[in-house]
């Protein structure tokens, strides 16, 4: 099994404060890996290092075959990223956003037009191609943003709470897109607060106070802790947290 993310002793300190404390884990190709934890646990800080956006204080990480400290630019070229805070340009049309990101992600010019058409059709957005993204409902935006993030078939796509505040139907459609991407061999690294979504993951890790307190499949975690739902797993582990915000 090809390892696509490899983290060893990954640490990030801000002065004496250890935001991320010696993380160790590996993620395989095509895996849907859930990265859970309460706000303030260190998830975003960890993700930023994995995306090549922030330098580790110590330890190492290899993402998509490149060291995040030595080759952050190569890392960025081989990943996709989507978050609630930023996904697409509100003041550009649907089609314009697709074309822009296709260019940024380095899709060859001759392919951009055909791939754009294919994507619009797949998402049933052909009629909406000239709609300003700001006019789209949140759920549609999220689906489009995800599709754009994997447009260039990256090895890994990082999703930072992609379905926050989105209704049950759209959330499911979104996760079907995730399933499909994973089936195509794209590794999905996702953070979520929805515990039913945690169930869709192949494996999960739970961060508490900067450390990983649990790392296993949803099924194994529930069995080990003797509980029936991921909700209860989260509650039991989060209760141990000393760090709130």
């Amino acid at each position, binding site marked *: 099994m090809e390892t696509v993310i490899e983290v060893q002793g990954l640490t990030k300190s801000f002065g004496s404060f250890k935001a991320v404390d010696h993380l160790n884990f590996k993620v395989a190709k095509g895996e849907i890996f859930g990265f859970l934890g*309460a*706000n*303030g646990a260190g998830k975003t800080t960890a993700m930023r290092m994995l995306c090549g956006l922030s330098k580790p204080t110590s330890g190492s990480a290899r993402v998509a075959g490149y060291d995040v400290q030595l080759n952050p630019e190569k890392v960025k070229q081989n990943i996709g990223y989507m978050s*609630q805070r930023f996904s697409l340009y509100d003041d550009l049309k649907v089609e314009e956003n697709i074309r822009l990101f296709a260019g940024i992600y380095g899709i060859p010019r001759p392919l951009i037009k055909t791939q754009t058409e294919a994507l619009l059709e797949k998402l049933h957005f052909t009629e909406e191609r000239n709609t300003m993204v700001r006019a789209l*409902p*949140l*759920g549609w935006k999220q689906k489009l943003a995800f599709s754009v993030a994997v447009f260039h078939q990256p090895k890994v796509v990082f999703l930072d*709470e992609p379905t*926050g*505040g*989105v*209704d*049950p*139907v*759209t959330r*499911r*459609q979104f*996760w*079907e897109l995730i*399933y*499909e991407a*994973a*089936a195509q061999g794209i590794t999905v690294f996702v953070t979520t*607060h929805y*515990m*039913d*979504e945690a*169930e*869709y993951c192949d494996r999960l890790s739970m961060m508490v106070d900067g450390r990983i307190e649990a790392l296993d499949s*949803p*099924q194994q975690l529930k069995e080990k802790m003797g509980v029936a739902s*991921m*909700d209860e797993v*989260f*509650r039991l582990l*989060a209760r141990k947290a000393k760090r709130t*915000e």
Partner: protein
Amino acid sequence: MDKMIVVEKITKHYEQVKALSNISFTINKGELFGLVGPDGAGKSTLFRILATLLLPDKGKAWINGVDVVKHYKKIRSSIGYMPGRFSLYQDLSVEENLNFYASVFGTTLEENYALIEDIYRYLLPFKERKAGKLSGGMKQKLALCCALIHAPSILFLDEPTTGVDPTSRQEFWETLSKLKEKGMTILVSTPYMDEAVLCDRIALMQEGQLMKVDTPQQIIDQFDKALWKVSAKNMYGLLKDMRLSPLVEQCYTFGQYLHFTFVQEELDALVAYLKQKGHQEIEIAPTAVTIEDCYLQLTDV
């Protein structure tokens, strides 16, 4: 039972878009009433009309017997409103925001402290922090305190827990439950089904229309089909194959399992079909209906 909020045939257009279509319902005094529906259903529009921030095109509404259009000023001092996005002053501290809002309503933090005490104690350690630097959960608590500062009798909360972590969400709903015990009438919208279930009654909304208004239990009882769950080793493959089967009416993901309904109950035939498709570790059984299943059935996912 006292009718606190009466909505009668409210309609609202935004140019071509019909945001609300002939909406009518009532909310009783002391009720915790939930508005449930996807983005674009019209929830925020309804809140803005009831909070006297937007005029309806047709229809009327009364809050505690007072017309929302004719006597909007009177209503504004008796309601607390928490809009969908954090809208307090990011560059003012927690304490400064609270004092500001108190002064706008002609009161002080001390006067109605008892009402917000339970919530404010979480914020006390951060009272000098700028509101913009608070975490999601803390922002929600502050916004709720500001909405309560003038001791309103009604609260309008537009998706107050969206984007907030599960622990804070639970704390927030415990707070709402305590406020309800003190006699507060609360209208809250939420995309979370586990929260919808905590309301006295809920309204399921879609595309500007009300689909159902009832207690969560009644809505569940009205689910008119047998619901089943299924899982297998390859969940995504299972989802695709289930949807291709003529035996299956509706099938959707539901955490660890898929939930589905039969066109006609033929359990053996379905299992045989799945085995023939190569599925392993098949687990299939009837399952209890939840509000989320009702919602998904009504919106036909």
